[in-house]
């Protein structure tokens, strides 16, 4: 059974159909890139998968549970337990240090564990920057903290929204390398991007246009 399944999803804002009858299923451990121009519905889809929004119509099955029917409170719990979020603008709490930012996610999930948080930062190569505030970190470093935070609770899906949008090429490569590692550890990755280079390295690329799926391709070069 698929980990995530979207069935006949539509999202309508007044006259505008942001998503128009989408069907999609993502298997456990898959690495999916979602592409498309601005206004194609990428963000709406990401919000729905990330339990931050509900579709106007259709079902969203995550682990067999229809999250479109859940209350806002339950959505928060599902997001906390199953989803790790990575943002284009990083969104770190600016008065907490790198390691504390990671611990915030632990705090809301279960119990803060500084050792575990440090290991997560070590993994993204930031062990020696753990005590710095976000304003003292470069963009790439901030994004790595954000990734460490997304991973700390071992989510079933890591959802990244334009993770490299604010990064230079060197940092972009670091982030993509991390994604590779995650994939090898069988983490399900959904990356929303408009950068073909980022999409290229994914296992599967879905292209959206005007709220519909324009193409759904398996990357033949994957892993090479």
């Amino acid at each position, binding site marked *: 059974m698929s980990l995530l399944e979207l069935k006949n999803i539509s999202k309508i804002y007044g006259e505008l159909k942001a998503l128009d009858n989408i069907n999609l299923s993502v298997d456990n451990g898959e690495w999916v890139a979602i592409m498309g121009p601005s206004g194609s519905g990428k963000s709406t889809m990401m919000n729905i998968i990330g339990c931050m929004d509900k579709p106007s119509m259709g079902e969203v099955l995550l682990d067999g549970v229809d999250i479109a029917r859940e209350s806002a409170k339950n959505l928060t719990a599902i997001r906390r337990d199953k989803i790790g979020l990575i943002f284009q603008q990083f969104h770190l709490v600016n*008065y907490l240090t790198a390691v504390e930012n990671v611990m915030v996610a632990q705090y809301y999930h279960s*119990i803060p564990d500084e050792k575990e948080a440090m290991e997560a930062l070590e993994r993204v190569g930031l062990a020696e920057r753990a005590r710095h505030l976000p304003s003292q970190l470069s963009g790439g470093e901030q994004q790595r903290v954000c990734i460490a935070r997304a991973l700390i609770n071992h989510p079933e899906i890591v959802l990244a929204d334009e993770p490299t949008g604010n990064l230079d090429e060197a940092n972009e490569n670091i982030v993509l390398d991390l994604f590779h590692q995650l994939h090898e550890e069988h983490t399900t990755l959904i990356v929303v991007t408009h950068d073909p280079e980022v999409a290229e390295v994914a296992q599967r690329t879905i292209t959206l246009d005007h709220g519909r799926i324009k193409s759904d391709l398996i990357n033949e070069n994957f892993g090479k």
Partner: protein
Amino acid sequence: MSKRKMFFKMITASLVRRRSRMLVALLAIAVGATILSGLVTIYIDVPRQMGAEMRNYGANMIFMASSNEAVFDRAAVEKGAALIPPDQVVGVSPYRYETVRIHEQPVVAAGTDIEQVRTTSPYWMIEGDWPSVTGDMLVGQDVAESLGLGVGDTVNVMSSDDSKEKDSEDLLNLGVDMKITGLLDTGGSEENYVYIAMEDLEGLVGPGELDVAELSISATADELSKYVDTIDAEVEEVTPRLVKRVTESESTVLTKLQALVFLVTAVVLVLTMICVATTMAAVVAERRKEIGLRKALGASDSSIIREFMGEGLLLGLVGGIVGAILGFLFAQFVSVRVFASSITFQPLMLPVTIIVSILITGAACLFPVRNATKIDPALVLKGE
């Protein structure tokens, strides 16, 4: 690390590392708390302080001889005054009026305790000095004018004829030389008398009963009438009476003044508290994005509210303590400047100020935080 420890780490980090913003909030709370503690302390203490000022109007109770046989003397007055709490008694002046002769003219001399008169009649205006030793004399302005006396003159005071008849000792007929240390200006009938020490008067005309005793008591109108009843019942030598002109007017004026300070305090407090609340609300509203982020990370509404309230309450606590201290200092400054006396420390004001600061801060944070938690995290995270 326990959850609670992380909770405190987060709120203290927010307070310490977001220094400028938190200072803004802290300043607002501290100013509010200062005004609260300062004005309320003044408000509580004003009746006492103003009451003391009102004692400037002089005696508000008099003792007179009762109609029975009992002797009305200084011992009787002291017995009566002892029934009033000593810290409320500002002064007790006994008076005995006898006619004496100065320059062969009859003049009424009042024997009294000059030190006490200074407290029971603080409004007396003296040209020259107050008498300080026996043998000194204070002369009413009218007497001085009609007899042609001036400050520094020494005059011979004799007992009047009728008392001489009663007492055959020749010494009394010679009279006593007394020095005029000051002329008295009151604009009232006091200007027609001369004032000498009780001992001098007794020396002149012999011992005798008092005519009246004036008391200045720092107490409310209710307390005063209670004292009158007690003394009337327990001291048979004395008939106490209130000087209504002073007591009634005092309570009228004091009531007004208290109402004035009360209303001013109320208006200032309400406005200041709203100011504090708007500032706090502005400071919290600024952090909508952070609230959105926390929600996206899976924080429940209740845990976000708990964290922000924790932060607010900590601010309220610190601001409240600072304000309570500053407010007391302000009240003390006012008291010293205005009433030249130190203010009573109201121990209750400390917890009250802190609790009110915490409540106001809490209420001011609660609404914007609750509003912020209703927001879709996706919307907050999207917009830069």
